[in-house]
């Protein structure tokens, strides 16, 4: 039986973030939108050009392109960056530490299944995951990444019982061709 303490710290959250497809779709969408708005804003209807063109506030408020530019600025350069910053792993891990200081997440790998025990704020969750639900396993320099519906990144210093080598051999036995060895 191998037991691992799965802390939701910054490095774990970064790995989860990097392996999250939805995050990359969102970022691709934002980069495209930002590129369009930046090109538009460089033109004659951009905010800078509108501010230079209108010499008084009265004229500025009557200029329709001013409102369009302000809307685009707010969405692309204010709203999206705020959402991105608020969901950054360092802030998320600080939020978890602040609101759930008693957060404990333990993975137990036995012969039949993976058991996951989570407890925080008085709530207890027990999840049994069969090995057949694993999509892929990848060995990295300092961790093993198990891809379920989400990525579980187990760092080499998080073992309570057992060792990375034991987990590797167990996963190789259970997952067979889903195991990929990366950098060592």
């Amino acid at each position, binding site marked *: 039986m191998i037991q691992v303490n799965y802390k939701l710290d910054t490095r774990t959250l970064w790995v989860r973030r990097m392996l999250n497809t939805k995050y990359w779709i969102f970022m691709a969408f934002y980069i495209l939108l930002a590129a369009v708005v930046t090109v538009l804003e460089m033109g004659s209807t951009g905010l800078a050009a509108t501010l230079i063109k209108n010499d008084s506030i009265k004229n500025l408020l009557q200029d329709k392109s001013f409102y369009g530019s302000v809307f685009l600025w707010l969405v692309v350069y204010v709203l999206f960056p705020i959402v991105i910053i608020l969901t950054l792993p360092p802030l998320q891990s600080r939020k978890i530490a602040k609101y759930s200081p008693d957060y404990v997440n333990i993975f137990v790998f036995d012969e039949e299944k993976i058991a996951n025990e989570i407890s925080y704020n008085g*709530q207890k969750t027990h999840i049994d995951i*069969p090995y057949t639900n694993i999509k892929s396993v990848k060995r990295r320099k300092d961790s093993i990444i198990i891809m379920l519906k989400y990525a579980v990144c187990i760092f080499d210093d998080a073992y309570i019982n057992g060792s990375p080598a034991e987990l590797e051999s167990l996963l190789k036995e259970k997952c067979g061709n889903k195991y990929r060895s990366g950098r060592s």
Partner: protein
Amino acid sequence: MIQVDLKKYPQKVWNRLSRSPVFWVAVTTQIGILICIVYNYFIKKDYLGSLEYYIFVGDIRMVFVLSVTFIIFVAGYAFAFLMFPPFKVWRFNRKHPDFSDIITFGDEYFVREIHKNGVVSHNECPYSSVHSVYKNDKNIAILTDRMITLFNDSYLNGTPAELEALLKEKCPDKCKF
């Protein structure tokens, strides 16, 4: 003991979506783009703002802007179609025919048991973790760190009135009814 089947309802997905800031940012952006297109083509009558015109004139900047706007607009609507709650629930039910999600209200905890693709999840939540409880004609919604919507027609054991009484007893200051 009160037991409720938490099936996947489109209404539940709508409730969850409406609490997501990313959803509202996406909706705002798409509506903004739609207003711009409608304004340009139907009110300003700017038919020259078409991609073909700018390709013909050789304005690379506007060709780039219009192409990317078109990609964002189409991708946004394709995504909205895939995430449209009735369609999403239909896809979910087809993909996970063995899905079951049952919540049982006991004296100290309420227990949620989920079976999905061979994964069994058992969650015990004390009544002290409840942030608030809302009620309307169709459902009772319990807000913990997630939203649990209990529809009046999905009770396996007990009735909505019994649950209301239990919640009022266990967390009286959290009930907003």
